């Protein structure tokens, strides 16, 4: 079941993210809880990786380490060849909820990273307007978040993570709070944005279908402690339509994820 690549060798040249033997423990000593154990993988430039696993498997912890919000206990994490030792300006994060500031307009929210990092206002404003148009929110620039639907708010959250042109986009179950239909539409939308911008994306989800639909490569994380249970490439042509979910190859990938998550077959004997 273990598809092991030789991960002991140094990071591949051209890889944007390189994670080697990453472990993270909450608390110290015997009472400490091991949240992540010996995680190794790398991401090529422009690659879309989905990390799928059940609640509590440490997916969000992994993302926090990559975002520099949480220091790892062991192992190394490199972004473009330099170790991540704290928050970095070349990372964009999309959270589970849109995390918009209600006192800022749509444009103001998208401009937040530019304001924080003191980037060229005029240039960033043009870019923000272009990105807002790209996700179909043209005309809503001066609206406030409370005037938008949940799906529209999350699109603002995604565009905000792109404004400062980060080297990598980290997405932590960004569509988890949306209803099933909006969620599928957002998946199609995200694929379109990704194909236009070709950002390197690490996408955390607990939905096997979402993972297979979006990703070039799927990493399955099994819980307690979070370990890589399986890792495989999804060879489905792009752009993928929602109808691809009904095809046999798609079903096979989903079954593979399910098998990795439930080694005993799942359910009661």
């Amino acid at each position, binding site marked *: 079941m273990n598809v092991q690549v030789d991960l002991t060798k140094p990071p591949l040249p051209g890889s944007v993210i390189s994670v080697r033997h990453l472990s993270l423990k909450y608390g110290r000593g015997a009472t400490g809880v091991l949240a992540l154990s010996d995680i190794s993988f790398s991401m090529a430039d422009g690659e879309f990786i989905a990390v799928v696993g059940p609640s509590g498997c440490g997916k969000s912890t992994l993302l926090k380490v990559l*975002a520099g919000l949480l220091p790892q206990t062991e192992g190394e994490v490199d972004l473009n060849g330099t170790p991540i030792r704290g928050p970095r300006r070349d990372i964009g994060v999309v959270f589970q909820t849109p*995390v918009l500031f209600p006192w800022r307009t749509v444009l103001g929210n998208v401009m937040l990273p530019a304001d924080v990092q003191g980037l060229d206002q005029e240039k960033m404003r043009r870019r923000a307007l272009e990105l807002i148009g790209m996700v179909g929110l043209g005309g809503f620039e001066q609206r406030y978040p409370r005037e938008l639907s949940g799906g529209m708010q999350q699109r603002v959250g995604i565009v905000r993570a792109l404004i400062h042109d980060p080297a990598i986009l980290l997405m932590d179950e960004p569509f988890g709070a949306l209803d099933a239909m909006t969620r599928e539409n957002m998946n199609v939308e995200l694929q379109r944005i990704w194909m236009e911008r070709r950002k390197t994306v690490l996408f955390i989800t607990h939905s096997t279908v979402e993972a297979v639909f979006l990703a070039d490569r799927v990493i399955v994380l099994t819980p307690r402690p979070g370990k890589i249970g399986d890792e495989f490439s999804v060879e489905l042509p792009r752009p993928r339509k929602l109808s691809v979910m009904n095809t046999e190859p798609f079903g096979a990938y989903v079954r593979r994820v399910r098998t990795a998550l439930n080694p005993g077959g799942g359910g009661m004997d």
Partner: protein
Amino acid sequence: MSRGPGSFALRLLFIAALLGAWEWAVFYFQTPAYIVPAPSKIAYAMYNGIVTNLYVGHIGATISETLLGFVVGCALAFMLGTVVALSRTVEYYLYPIIIMFQAMPKVALVPLILVWFGLGLTSKVISAALVAFFPLMVNTIVGLHSADEDRVNLMRSLSASRWQIFRMLQLPNAMPYIFAGLEIAMIFALIGAIVAELISSERGLGMLMQSMSFTMDVAGQFSILFILSILGLILNGLVTLARRKVLFWDTSRDADASQQTSTSGEVL
């Protein structure tokens, strides 16, 4: 709140009926005017006071004491609240003192303030500031601490400095709490000023009320109560107006404000 075009008229009618019942009860029970005066007597006292220009100077004195006390008290409360909210060390050492002061009825300090600062404007301003101080300080601390963890993480992930997190996130996020505190502080400042005037003063509505009490002018005292209530409404309205301007984005405004008001249960 009106539930229909007729409800405002009904409301006026209800108040008129209450006043009528009051008038009738005073007449029927032959209540002496030095205990409970009839509304007509109060209105007459009010009219007399207005034509003899009795109130204006005193209203002016009370308003200036209240507003000065409000500004001084709120400025200090905001600064100290911010320092306490941002520094764990300061919070650790000041917290017990804050709790003790909060539990103490602040108006009990007013006689001391009068001894220390005399009978003039200063003692009234300090008294008003002292009473106004705590609700705003508590709300400032709570508001600055209330920033959502995800939002803080977002700011951190953008490598925001501590000052940027304060300016761009914590402060705007605290504004609903701060305005709820300001609304209470305004009314509290009026209370602080009036209490100081009642105890000892040369001017002001509280002093006027005290002197009327010596001459058993109960109708006059009622007329001042009425003026004070109008004054409180106007002062509170000013803060509410400012809040509507600043907090246009706060959708939960009224429900929130009343909630926050009740959380800062204060001892005057």
